[in-house]
Structures are given as C-alpha cells and as structure tokens.
C-alpha cells in the first residue's frame, strides 16, 4: 500500500503539489486524472524518489521514503516498475537489451537464460521476435509496450504508468488498457495510472482520484466519479469547454483584453 500525506513540491515559485493526500490500496489500480501541467508526472516521480518534495510523507508498506538516504531508496525502488510518458527506451540499445536491463544489473537470471526471459516478458505485452530491433524502428504503440515489458521484467510489486494511452490510436489504447488490467489480475500488482483519457480511466480503474491545483480534490469509484456533484470534476470528466476550470482563465483573458 502507498499512503501519501501532505505532499508539497515546488519548482522555484511554481507550486505544483500543495499538501496532497492520496491512499493507494494494495492490489488495486488507482487512476489519477487531471489537466496537462497539473503535476501528475511530478506526483509519481515523487513516489519513486526521482524528485524530492519539500514536505509531506510517502509511506510504502509503512516506510517513509522521504526519510531515506539514496542507498536505502535503491532498495525501495526495486519494488517499483515505471512506464514513462514517452516510453524512455534507451535508444543506444536494441529492444532485447532494453527489456533485459534491470535483469542484468540485478543479476536476476544467468546470462544464457536472458533471451528466453526477455521473450517471455515481451510476449506478455503481445510482442514477438523484435529483440534485435532498435527503438527508433518501433511505432509509438510498440515503444509503449516495450517500455511496459521493461518495467515488468524485474517483477515489481508496484507499477506506475504515466499516460500509457496518450498519443495512441483507440485500438492500440485499448490493447494497453487490457494489458494493464491483465497485469493486475495475473500478478496482483498495485498500480497508479496517470491519464486524461476518461475512456481508459473508467475501464482500468478501481479508484479514480482527481488532481487539481496541487491537491486531490475527489476520490471515488469510476461510478462515483461519473456521477459526481463536484463541478470541477464534472467539467473534467465530461470534457466541457465551459465550467469552473476554464472560467478562471476566461476571467484572465477578459482582464487582459480590457
């Protein structure tokens, strides 16, 4: 389980997270929704210790990672797998070496078994016979799937997905949705998924949380979020151009044009 309490993170004067609270139950998929630039990526980067917040606590199975030094963090990070927004494949290595990266660093399998293990991980994301291709030769959807295979290769307990379906066509997006669901069902991983694709959110979520102005303003089941009474959440999930989220910037536009 991951429990985040009072998390605050700023870059210079730009306050991105402002006392955020979120509980991520074990074995469930928590989806975080929110507009672009609201700090969704910053939130999960804090959770793996890639960014250091100014205040708050992040408890991973009861241990506060913000009190840890870099060496202790290395141990905790082994529980995590992360799929990055742009897949972040190592472009100097072929697909096989990308997926095998953590396996080799952690010496989890003898070298002679690596290819086999990698092929198995790739088959879990529906890919075959592409170990020798370079990342530059892959389509966007394939990159995301290879990124996913790399993230699950070392069998993490917790998976973080940063916009897994953004930029994919609807069919490929649904393939990824099914993968996320099957990973949760087959390996029982705890996961946080970031998205602003509501179709995907409703499909894969056990719980949806909305990030707005540095805080989680509502948490609920997909059904509760769909029928929310909170006007901000309602505007976002229904994708309306007018509402409380955009009113503020409209006031600003009117102010500028005056």
């Amino acid at each position, binding site marked *: 389980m991951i429990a985040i309490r009072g998390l605050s993170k700023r870059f210079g004067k730009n306050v991105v997270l402002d006392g955020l609270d979120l509980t991520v139950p074990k074995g469930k998929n928590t989806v975080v929704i929110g507009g672009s630039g609201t700090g969704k990526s910053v939130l999960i980067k804090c959770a793996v*210790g890639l960014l250091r917040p100014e205040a708050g606590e992040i408890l991973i199975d009861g241990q506060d990672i913000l009190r840890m030094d870099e060496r202790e963090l290395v141990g905790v990070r082994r529980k995590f797998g*992360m799929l*990055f927004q742009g897949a*972040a494949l190592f*472009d100097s290595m072929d697909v096989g070496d990308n997926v095998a990266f953590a396996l080799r660093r952690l010496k989890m399998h003898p070298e002679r078994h690596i290819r086999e293990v990698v092929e198995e991980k790739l088959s879990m994301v529906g890919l075959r016979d592409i170990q020798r291709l370079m990342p530059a030769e892959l389509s966007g959807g394939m990159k995301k799937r290879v990124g996913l295979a790399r993230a699950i290769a*070392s069998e993490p307990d917790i998976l973080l997905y940063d916009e897994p379906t953004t930029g994919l066509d609807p069919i490929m997006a649904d393939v990824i949705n099914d993968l996320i669901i099957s990973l949760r069902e087959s390996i029982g991983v705890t996961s946080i998924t970031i998205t602003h694709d509501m179709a995907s959110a409703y499909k894969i979520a056990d719980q949806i949380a909305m990030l707005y102005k540095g805080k989680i303003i509502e948490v609920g089941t997909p059904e509760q979020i769909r029928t929310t009474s909170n006007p901000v959440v309602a505007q976002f999930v229904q994708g309306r151009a007018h509402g409380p989220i955009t009113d503020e910037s409209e006031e600003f536009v009117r102010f500028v044009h005056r």
Partner: protein
Amino acid sequence: MTDSGGKNGAARFAERLGERVYAMVLDLGAIFTLFVQVLSWIVRPPSEFRNIVKQMEEVGVRSLPVVLVTAAFTGMVLALQSYSGFQRFGATSFVGSVVALSITRELGPVFAGLMVSGRVGASMAAELGTMKVTEQIDALVTLATNPVKYLVVPRVVAATIVLPILVVFADLLGILGGYFVSVYLLGANPYVYIAKTYQYLEFKDIYTGLIKASVFGMLIALISCHHGFVAQGGAEGVGRATTRAVVASSMIVLISDYFMTSFMF
C-alpha cells in the same frame, strides 16, 4: 516606471555580470559534487569495465584522426616559423629542439585537449542531454541503476586514460611533421636535426605533457557530463547544453594548462 528602468547602464551591467558569476559558481559547485560522486562510485560493484572499454573506443578511435592531423600541422608550422625566426640570428640548428620541446610540453596536450573538447565533449553532452530530456536517465534510476555510476564514471575514466595515449601519438606526429618540413622543404641536415631533437628533450617534458592530458580528459568528461545532466527543454535544450559543454571544456583546458604549467616547471 519599472525598477530596473531607473538604473543606469553600469548598474545593470554589474547586475548581469553578477548573475553570470553566480551561475558559474553554481556550475563549479555542481561539477565538483559530480567529481566526488564519481570517486565514490568508481570503487563500488558492479564494475563498469565493459562500459569503460566501450567509452575508451568512443573517445580514442573517434578522436585519433583529428588529433593526428592537428598535431602534424602544428609541428609543420612550428618548424616553418622557428626556422624563419632563428635565421635572423643564425640559430637554425635549434629548430629541432624548439619543435620537440613545444610539442611535448605544450602544444601536443593542449591541441589534443581542444580537439577532444569539441569532438568528445560535444557528443557526451548531446548524448546525456538527450537521455535527460527523454527521461532515459530517470528510467535508469527506476531500473536499479545509478546514472552517475553507469554514465559518468565510464566516461571520466575512459577520457582520463585515453587522452595521454592520444597525446603520445600527437607528440610523435608533431615531431615528424617538423622534421619533414625542416629536412625536405627547408633543407636542414637530417642528422643534425635528429641530434638536436634528442639533445634537449628530457623525459620530464614528455610525462608532464601526458599528466596534463590526463587532467584535461578528466575535466572535459566531467564538464560535458554535467552539462548533459542539467539539460532541460527538448532538442533546443540539448543544443544549448552541447554548446556550453564545448565552450566550458575548451576554456578549462587553457586555464588548467596555465596553472599546471606554473606548478610543474
């Protein structure tokens, strides 16, 4: 009226200068921190031996042609210049000594350092900068790998070892270049030329040059990796990082050369 609009030009200039100096001090601090991290990761397992070899190839093989050409022409032009200068007081027999001493002590290491700054510094900053802005460095961290250990240590170690090797070749080619110009173009006596080359050249001239080269290699790699690591803002940011890396490492070659020379001789 804004605040800065009220200031005169000199005050604004001083402010800008202050910001620049402040940024430079921060950079130096970060590079020093990186150096300390490199030292602390070098000794920890797993060893990055294969990565180091790969980087040595990258630094060495790729820079060899440009370093050799530069060194040969430096030796050649040195011979030309010192010949026409020394003619004025009938000391042309010393051309060989001047070429050998200048190349081994100064010009071999410095020109190799400058060439490597451009060639290797740029590629290190561009590669690490691209990895930074495409989140590959974050990905390393989530895959149980420290980026300083995996990326910086091999580059710093490789450059520190390879630069002196490059300079050995540069010294040879520089001296050969001087010999060819003197003997075949200016008609110097080859035996006298070789004798003079040996006569004043001491072992110390060569190894101090090689030590300098080693330090240049280490500084170039550290600075270029630093600028790659702090790159921000897409392809444009990578471009800026690359330029900064080349300018800073070329400058540090010349600056550190002065201080090392004043220490060693």
